[in-house]
């Protein structure tokens, strides 16, 4: 075979240095610009279309939802929240927010409204709930802000509640939604977390009926979630296969918010 090309001259050291610097710094510069452009794209990305979730940049919301799927793989009913002796529980239970438990509420008129996914409605009184076996838990309540506090709560286990009131079938749907009587605060829970053995419909705090500002007469205590999911003063419980409304998920927070 004929070879028309000139025989390659070996490059001098200086040529080699120049060539390698050119390629390396060229790639470095291009990647640097690409990274900066990528960051600008992400940082200035428009907010997600407001729906059940809102307030986050669209790509970041997608990432939160993907991360939720990854983290759900680690969830197990066998992973229990650490519990403490009652003596370690805080006497002054931290109170962070009044959304959903503001005035104009008549506790005597309260009934828990449970709406099955078939549409059937149950109205349950606090006496009916208190008549069932009480479960107590002393655990480290964790706020999404970063603080935590050992608290002592008592009430009816969610899974016991579901079984007793003929709601076993409802546990087969994907989500449970809870709302305050004034509808100002709502929480959506994936079913595995909602029926975790430590999830409680609480009516006692530190061995006494829950005070008004902590969600009397009945509130949610769900230790596998951040405080934002621990809805005060439950007005209604619903079931669905799509995400129910959630107060903080509409303000840019992760819908899952699991611990």
């Amino acid at each position, binding site marked *: 075979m004929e070879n028309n090309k000139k025989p390659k001259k070996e490059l001098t050291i200086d040529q080699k240095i120049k060539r390698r610097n050119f390629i390396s710094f060229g790639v470095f510069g291009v990647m640097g610009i690409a990274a900066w452009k990528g960051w600008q794209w992400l940082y200035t990305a428009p907010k997600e279309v407001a729906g059940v979730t809102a307030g986050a940049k669209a790509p970041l919301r997608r990432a939160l939802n993907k991360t939720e799927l990854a983290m759900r793989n*680690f969830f197990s009913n066998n992973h229990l929240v650490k519990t403490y002796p009652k003596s370690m529980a805080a006497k002054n239970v931290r109170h962070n927010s009044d959304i959903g438990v503001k005035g104009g509420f008549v506790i005597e008129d309260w009934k828990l409204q449970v709406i099955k996914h078939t549409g059937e409605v149950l109205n349950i009184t606090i006496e009916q709930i208190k008549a069932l076996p009480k479960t107590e838990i002393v655990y480290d309540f964790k706020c999404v802000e970063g603080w935590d506090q050992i608290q002592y709560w008592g009430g009816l286990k969610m899974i016991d509640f579901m079984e007793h009131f003929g709601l076993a079938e409802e546990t087969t749907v994907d989500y449970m939604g809870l709302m305050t009587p004034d509808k100002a605060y709502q929480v959506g829970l994936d079913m595995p977390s909602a029926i975790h053995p430590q999830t409680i419909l609480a009516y006692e705090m530190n061995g006494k009926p829950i005070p008004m500002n902590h969600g009397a007469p009945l509130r949610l205590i769900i230790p596998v979630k951040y405080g934002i999911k621990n809805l005060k003063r439950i007005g209604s419980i619903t079931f669905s296969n799509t995400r129910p409304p959630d107060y903080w998920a509409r303000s840019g927070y992760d819908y899952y918010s699991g611990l």
Partner: protein
Amino acid sequence: MKAIKEKHSLLMRWTHWVNFPILTIMIWSGMLIYWSNDVYNITIFGHTYFKFFPQGFYDYFHFSKRLSEGMAFHFLFMWFFALNGIVYVLYTIISGSWRELLPERKSFKEAWLVLLHDLHIRKMAPPQNKYNAAQRIAYTAIIVMGFGSLITGLAIYKPVQFATITWLCGGYHLARILHFALTIGYVFFFLIHIVQVVLAGWNNFRSVISGFEIVNEEPKALTPSTPAEDGK
């Protein structure tokens, strides 16, 4: 004579420069999160010397009231931070370049000599290969710190599902403190690193982009000594 001396592998250079912006974003988004419960300070015998952080610091960097945004960024870039670190560590183990990185027994003693030399107290620096003793310690420590950030991060991110990790970190509180302290550590590492890179000069800096250093090799002796001469 001028010669090319290979210094940093392609993978080391990539992971180094990929890590830089990712860690920056992790620290920034971490600050957005820390702001909502900024309880740490340095208090000795009842006197508070420093509060993390002064209001002016938050104001200057616009860190206030951005918790949800910080979390969203943090929990996306954590994946890249972890992945990049894992790639680097695996490469370092498999390629054998850990031999040039991990501190040796003598490194701990030599590191002091390097320090004295850097501070212009001692004239001679101990002989070294790719990294000197102080670099071996510092660059190994930063990898251990990165691993520490991942572990303490998991401990406070999923303290229920990864309860064992939280327990290993000494509990939720200590894990959060360590996670924070490691971040402060990165900032100090970065400051010293930049000063050292500037002092080390262009040849050194270029090697982390191009991979090589230019050395002046002495021409080889034309008449090498023979065993017969040695044995005289």
